[in-house]
């Protein structure tokens, strides 16, 4: 592939990604609110982000453990299904795109981008929970499973032994499926790789595998380890052809009074593999033929601080990671590619119905696999901020109005090696039932 | 705005409460008058079916007379509480302990008056479990709930700090009922078997006299008390058909 061709592909890639990015957001689950008579605010700091109570509920396997956790078969009328619909108007502009007419800024916008997620989840039997999120319709009309797992909770009577099987999101510091923003800007560090790396491993993507998770009462201490097959790697077919490993441990301090109501520190890391060769047919990898696996790694830390009254907190999240991609994954590499990155997110729940948030994402290559390339090639940064106003909530459903802006810059990947910037303006409704 | 309102409201509430709480002033009454009279039931007392006991029949029997209307000589009505409403000054409150007895699966007495500061002795004559559960008549709020698990058991408890009409139940025997009027003053009397009442040592002045019956409600009358003299106030209640 020539340099230009590659750039064009990347650029188109960026555009398509954005177009498709009304990403599946497993976010909110009002079916639980209906079952337990709680408002969304009981489990969500500002939905869809969970608060301590919501986390503890989820960690207990969607159970409150008060003798009222009827299984989905027991309570007629309780239907463990939720939908989330996000009609919105988004205007997207991408700068410095190569066209036949020269370097141009491309804009596109439209109403009617309706994201819709269907969630089914609950308690099958005591201490057996499940989640199924059939999202997205592939071009051939097939529904694919965004998420599908079964969890066995409190094995041997201890909250330190829970096992999840199936397609699940690994235990990220901040769930990629519960961002405050609806714009297409993801938490960049989750999917970032050293420049040029073939690996497409995205921590935020749900993976087929097994997760062990343990926690104490109230989930102040937790640990989770997932072993999985990296999704979408070319030429792979079985569950273990491109193994990956992810781990996360946190400790939270809560304070009975004072300006800081809670502080959480954690570490996380991933070790994943990606094939570098496979047989192809018409250019498409033939499943089951991927081989020559090479690793990518990330290791990082998180710090979360909740300031102010814990019921309407100012929540600061800092996540950072150092990553390394094997040189074999990078074209023309003579050394491993390394990078550093992370994000700082600030969400202020001003009142129960109003949230403002701000996020700064930054990912920088610290060593290009191909030392001849500029050090900052494909460095990325993004700023996202917005306002969410929930205008109605009950223990049955929620409606919110959202207004957001995000800008995402990529270094040196535009036409003629220019930087590109993607600006997104979004106004929409977020409805969950 | 809301906050201002609620602050104002609670301030208002507080002042009302303190007004009620501090109303009565003790003075020496040397030559007080007496308010006396008879409370009568007009016509025939309605027939009330006896209480069917639903538990402990081996001891309580299968039925008990229902004492809602106890009529004596010349239509005199028992168990009517008569009191001087809102009296602000007078003699000191009694300090003796009042009694509420659980006997033969009923409370005795059915109606009595009391003053703040008095204590109540709750006792049982019955070889079965009773529980004496006084509640505020308006709010149903539990005042306390004491188990009297065996015969001969008794406890003495203070009455509530603020005056109120107390309805007493026994949860174990839902038919049992007693009424305790608690006042911040000592000017009240419960009619006897012939409907008589007498309220003594009343400082001269004009008062509203109230008669209260558990089913037939309240009646008011005005009475002017002269020093050292009795004044007669009679009441008559007509039962609803």
């Amino acid at each position, binding site marked *: 592939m020539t340099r230009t061709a590659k750039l064009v592909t990347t650029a188109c890639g960026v555009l398509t990604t954005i177009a498709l990015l009304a990403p599946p957001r497993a976010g909110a689950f009002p079916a639980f609110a209906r079952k337990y008579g709680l408002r969304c605010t*009981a489990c969500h700091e500002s939905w869809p982000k969970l608060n301590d109570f919501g986390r503890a509920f989820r960690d207990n396997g969607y159970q409150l453990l008060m003798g009222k956790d009827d299984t989905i078969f027991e309570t007629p009328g309780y239907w463990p299904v939720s939908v989330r619909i996000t009609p919105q108007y988004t205007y997207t502009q991408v700068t410095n795109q190569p066209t036949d007419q020269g370097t141009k800024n491309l804009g596109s916008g439209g109403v009617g981008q309706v994201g819709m997620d269907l969630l089914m989840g609950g308690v099958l039997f005591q201490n057996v929970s499940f989640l199924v999120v059939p999202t997205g319709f592939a071009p051939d009309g097939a529904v694919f499973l965004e998420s599908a797992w079964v969890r066995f909770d409190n094995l041997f009577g201890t909250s330190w032994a829970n096992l999840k099987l199936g397609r699940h999101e690994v235990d990220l510091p901040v769930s990629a499926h519960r961002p405050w923003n609806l714009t297409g800007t993801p938490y960049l560090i989750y999917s970032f790789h050293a420049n040029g790396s073939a690996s497409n491993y995205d921590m935020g993507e749900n993976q087929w595998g097994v997760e062990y998770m343990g926690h104490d009462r109230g989930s102040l201490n937790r640990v989770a380890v997932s072993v999985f097959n990296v999704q979408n790697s070319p030429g792979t077919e079985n569950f273990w052809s491109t193994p990956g490993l992810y781990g996360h441990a946190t400790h939270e301090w809560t304070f009975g*009074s*004072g300006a800081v109501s*809670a502080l959480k520190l954690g570490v996380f890391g991933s070790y994943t593999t990606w094939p570098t060769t496979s047989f192809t047919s018409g250019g498409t990898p033939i499943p089951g033929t991927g081989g020559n696996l090479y690793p990518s790694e990330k290791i990082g830390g998180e710090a979360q601080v909740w300031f102010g009254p814990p019921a309407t907190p100012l929540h600061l999240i800092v996540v*950072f990671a150092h990553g390394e991609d094997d040189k074999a994954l990078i074209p023309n590499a003579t050394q491993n590619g390394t990078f550093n990155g992370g994000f700082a997110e600030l969400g202020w729940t001003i009142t*129960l119905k109003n949230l403002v948030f701000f996020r700064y994402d930054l990912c920088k290559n610290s060593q290009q696999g191909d030392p001849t390339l500029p050090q900052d090639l494909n460095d990325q940064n993004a700023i996202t901020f917005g306002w969410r106003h929930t205008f109605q909530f009950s223990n049955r459903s929620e409606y919110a109005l959202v207004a957001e802006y995000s800008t995402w810059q990529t270094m040196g990947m535009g036409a003629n090696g220019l930087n590109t910037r993607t600006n997104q303006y979004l106004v929409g409704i977020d409805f969950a039932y | 705005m809301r906050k201002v309102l609620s602050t104002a409201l609670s301030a208002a509430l507080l002042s009302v409460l303190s007004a009620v709480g501090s109303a009565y002033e003790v003075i020496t009454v040397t030559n007080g008058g007496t308010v006396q009279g008879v409370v009568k039931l007009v016509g025939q007392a309605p027939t009330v079916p006896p209480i069917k006991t639903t538990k402990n029949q081996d001891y309580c029997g299968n039925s008990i007379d229902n004492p809602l209307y106890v009529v004596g000589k010349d239509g005199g009505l028992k168990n009517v509480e008569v009191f001087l409403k809102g009296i602000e000054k007078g003699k000191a409150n009694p300090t003796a302990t009042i009694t509420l007895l659980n006997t033969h699966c009923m409370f005795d007495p059915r109606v009595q008056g009391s003053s703040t500061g008095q204590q109540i002795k709750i006792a049982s004559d019955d070889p079965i479990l009773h529980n004496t559960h006084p509640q505020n008549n308006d709010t149903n709020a539990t005042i306390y709930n004491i188990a009297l698990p065996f015969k001969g058991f008794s406890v003495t408890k203070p009455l509530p700090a603020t005056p109120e009409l107390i309805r007493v139940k026994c949860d174990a025997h839902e038919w049992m009922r007693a009424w305790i009027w608690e006042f911040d003053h000592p000017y009240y009397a419960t009619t006897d078997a012939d409907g008589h009442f007498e309220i003594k040592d009343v400082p001269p002045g004009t008062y509203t006299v109230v008669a209260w019956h558990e089913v037939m409600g309240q009646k008011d009358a005005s009475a002017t008390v002269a020093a050292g003299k009795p004044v007669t106030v009679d009441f008559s209640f007509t039962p609803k058909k």
Partner: protein
Amino acid sequence: MKRLSIVASAFVALALAAPARAQGPGSGGDPVKGKVVYERYCLSCHGELGNGAGEFAEWITTKPRDYRQGTFKWRSTPSGSLPTDADLDKTIRDGIYGTFMPTWYAIGEHNRRDVIAYIKTFSARWKTDKPQPSIVIPAEPPYSDASVKRGRAVYEKSNCAQCHGQDALGDGPSAHELKDDWGNPIVPYDLTQGHIKCGDTGSDIYRVFITGLNGTPMPSFTDSISPEEAWDLVHYIQSLSALYPKNYGPAAAK
């Protein structure tokens, strides 16, 4: 990495430097902040007016507490008294088993303290009345068969069976048609279930029959059962199900 640990320890220091709280659990909260806590977590059941008639109340049988009378079931204080702040904190922290009242352990002490202060604004009783001193629960003697046997005798002598039934299944002669202060039907607890509504420990059972549950038919036996008898009775109740944790000291929180 080093920089992070500096930042982290700064935060810890900041948090710890916060004014040490003068009172015990549940005390000293701010009712204004508590209102928001209440709206966030409690409103759907206990209602905007604190009358227990939130939007979810009509769907459930054991109704959420109406706060306007200042009547609370689970207390360390004598029959009829208001509960202490620590009592409320315990109830809210651990929830009420078998009802829709969840455990609010995860919302933390700070939130609970504030919401307790707010709950108290619903009843004027909190302004005119004070909780009486908590009862003293003596240290638990060891659980033993002899104690269980003596406890059965206390159960009989105290006539718990009148409501709870001979075999403590909640089916005594007076078990039916019972009503609570709010006029809702209520049934004596089936003590063989192995988990009482509010708490797991021996002292949780102890305080129930010694102080009674205000607002319910469950009376106080403080004047008729001595502390020794009380522990025997606790052991008898614990013997009714393998699920009750035995020899579980009062100091140990679950």
